[in-house]
């Protein structure tokens, strides 16, 4: 593992945000602004079935009546929703059947990002759906997965090839009018990933969606829907980056997970959207709704997130524990530096009996950033014998940043037990000196200490992602000491 330490050091000293490049590809962008006609245009461009027009317009009308949420511990500058273009796509071809057809610039982009789209080159069998500016450009290993009956494709393809499945499950976890950003997403989302694991199937490889914003002045609104049928298992990864730009860009995604009886879904995210520069210029506004329903008994949904990017993060991956004996987990590392703001956490709603949930949240704040944990644990009156354990830790670097914890706990019966622990600590000068005294530089020492602090969460990530995440944590803290 420490093999990587040298590489990390190299990267730490090398660059600030190494994914900040822009790819010059021909892009089709529709007029800025949002109205019913724009919603129709998106629907037409995508050639979606009729029920989707209904779905989108319904969402749009709900959104019009809603207001930006203001309860988070965030200073959100006004967003002009008419100044954004709601659809951008690489012009060449909507979807590539073979790699020969892919724009070489685009291929190069994903190679630079470390996401090779050539299957034979691929690391250890991770199937990738690559989404650039809201459009899926390539899904790898589709055939291999199809042999097991697994559907893994872009959302657009799913609407063409499996409309009934999509219709059955879409908005089951996140209703159209759930919140302002979910409503907006439902009205204008352009693509994303769809995944269906049939009964009794263990998905033989990690499934992954890689999101990339490229075009300027566009919003990215993608949607992911994962359905795990009875007795199935899947581990899903999500990564994201964006070019460096001075203006802010909006990202409002929706992720829904449905787990049937005894199904298990692991969803891991390494969020590395452009965070803005050191003065707080630019960066992605990340307003994301992620929710899973454990519909079946003994089903399990596990969220793991490493959040290092975005200027503003507003995100609460949640579990509705409907099935008896179902399990919900949330493991999170959220790092903020410079002027970043994050308000993130989870909701665990216990409806089924004997349902259990675990929350481990590790906040790291540096610079003049603000980092908040916001969590709700709700146990319904009928949900007997439920358990929740929450651990919320904050680590502060310097004295100009903020860490805040907002835990909400509602327990509706007396047979359930909820435990909450919270700690706040400063990164210890003594710890750094101890490392220095053994020949380790301060920069490396901090990377090491922070990774140690986050270990419990990093351990939940699939191996390759864990290495990536460790590097990210170290890089993101560059320049935060001294």
């Amino acid at each position: 593992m420490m093999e990587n330490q040298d590489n990390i050091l190299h990267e730490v000293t090398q660059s600030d945000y190494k994914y900040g490049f822009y790819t010059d590809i021909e892009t089709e962008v529709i007029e800025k602004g949002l109205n019913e006609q724009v919603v129709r245009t998106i629907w037409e461009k995508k050639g979606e079935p009729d029920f989707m027009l209904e779905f989108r317009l319904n969402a749009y009308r709900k959104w019009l009546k809603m207001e930006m949420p203001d309860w988070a511990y965030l200073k959100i500058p006004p967003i002009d929703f008419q100044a954004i273009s709601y659809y951008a796509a690489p012009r060449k071809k909507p979807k590539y059947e073979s790699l020969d057809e892919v724009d070489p610039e685009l291929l190069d982009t994903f190679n630079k990002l470390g996401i090779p789209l050539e299957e034979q080159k691929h690391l250890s069998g991770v199937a990738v759906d690559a989404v650039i500016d809201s459009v899926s450009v390539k899904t790898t290993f589709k055939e291999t997965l199809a042999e097991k009956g697994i559907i893994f494709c872009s959302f657009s393809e799913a609407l063409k090839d499996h409309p009934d499945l999509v219709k059955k499950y879409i908005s089951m976890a996140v209703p159209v009018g759930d919140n302002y950003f979910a409503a907006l997403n439902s009205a204008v989302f352009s693509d994303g990933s769809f995944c269906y694991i049939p009964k009794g199937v263990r998905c033989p490889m990690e499934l992954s969606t890689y999101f990339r914003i490229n075009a300027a002045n566009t919003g990215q609104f993608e949607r992911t829907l994962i359905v795990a049928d009875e007795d199935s298992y899947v581990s899903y990864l999500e990564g994201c980056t964006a070019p460096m730009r001075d203006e802010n860009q909006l990202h409002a995604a929706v992720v829904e997970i449905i787990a049937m009886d005894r199904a298990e879904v692991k969803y891991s995210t390494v969020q590395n959207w452009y965070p803005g520069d050191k003065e707080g210029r630019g960066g992605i506004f990340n307003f994301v709704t992620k929710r899973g329903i454990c519909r079946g008994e003994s089903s399990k949904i596990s969220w793991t997130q490493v959040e290092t990017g975005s200027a503003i993060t507003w995100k609460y991956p949640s579990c509705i524990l409907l099935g008896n004996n179902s399990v919900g987990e949330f493991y999170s590392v959220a790092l903020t530096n410079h002027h970043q703001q994050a308000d993130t956490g989870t909701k665990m709603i216990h409806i089924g009996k004997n349902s259990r949930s675990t929350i481990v949240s590790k906040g790291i704040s540096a610079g003049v950033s603000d980092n908040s944990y916001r969590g709700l644990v709700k146990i319904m009156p009928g949900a007997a014998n439920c358990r929740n354990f929450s651990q919320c830790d904050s680590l502060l670097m310097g004295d100009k940043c903020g860490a805040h914890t907002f835990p909400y706990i509602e327990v509706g019966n007396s047979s359930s037990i909820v435990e909450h622990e919270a700690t706040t600590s400063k990164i210890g000068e003594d710890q750094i000196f101890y490392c220095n005294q053994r020949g380790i530089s301060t920069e490396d020492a901090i990377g090491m200490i922070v990774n140690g602090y986050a270990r419990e969460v990093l351990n939940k990530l699939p191996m390759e992602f864990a290495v990536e995440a460790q590097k990210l944590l170290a890089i993101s803290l560059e320049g935060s000491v001294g």
Partner: protein
Amino acid sequence: MCVSVEGKEILNGINLEIKAGEVHAIMGPNGSGKSTLANVLAGKDGYEITAGEVTYMGEDLLVQAPEDRARKGIFLSFQYPVEIPGVPMVSFLKTAVNEHRKFRGDKPLSAGEFLKLMREKKKLVELDTELTNRSVNEGFSGGEKKKNEIFQMALLEPKLSILDETDSGLDIDALKIVAHGVNALKSPETSTIVVTHYQRLLDYIVPDRVHVLYKGRIVRSAGKELALELEEKGYDWIKKDNANQP
């Protein structure tokens, strides 16, 4: 050399010369400035050097970053070793060893080579094998922490080792093991500063010189017999002799 912390003078007039191959003991009552001296030599932040200089192998030591001093062979065995939760001892040590190697221009050790080296050095201080799988110093007993310091010394092979009360908190068996480890690492090229309250450790690590530090000043220096004298008479006579110190 004179040193202050937050405007308070803690060391005022230290004069020491340590040659290669020598062992110097620094003794003195609590609060006399022993740890301060050790920390200043290792380069800990927060001390103001108000006067004086320190030369190490012909170079000005005080301008150097602590990690560079370490890489050039200065090792501090901490009086209170620090815990670093979640960082496995093995990774910590491998990073440290490879930083030292990089500084010398040697290739980094592979995981296999490092484990082999570790097994070898563990024997020296009879360190429980399982300890290196834990997080740095986390859940170690007092004695284990001290053994672990000497284990690290063995891995890093320093030129100047400063042992700050490495004997405190050790039972007699552990004390012997630790002393044996330190002696085994001694060579004509290495020097050692042993900071201690008690004569006990000096039975096993025999010093060439003994210095008594009191109120930030070296008030007496002599051969190893001084330690015995202190043991016999306690620190009171030193205190009495220096009663009119500020």
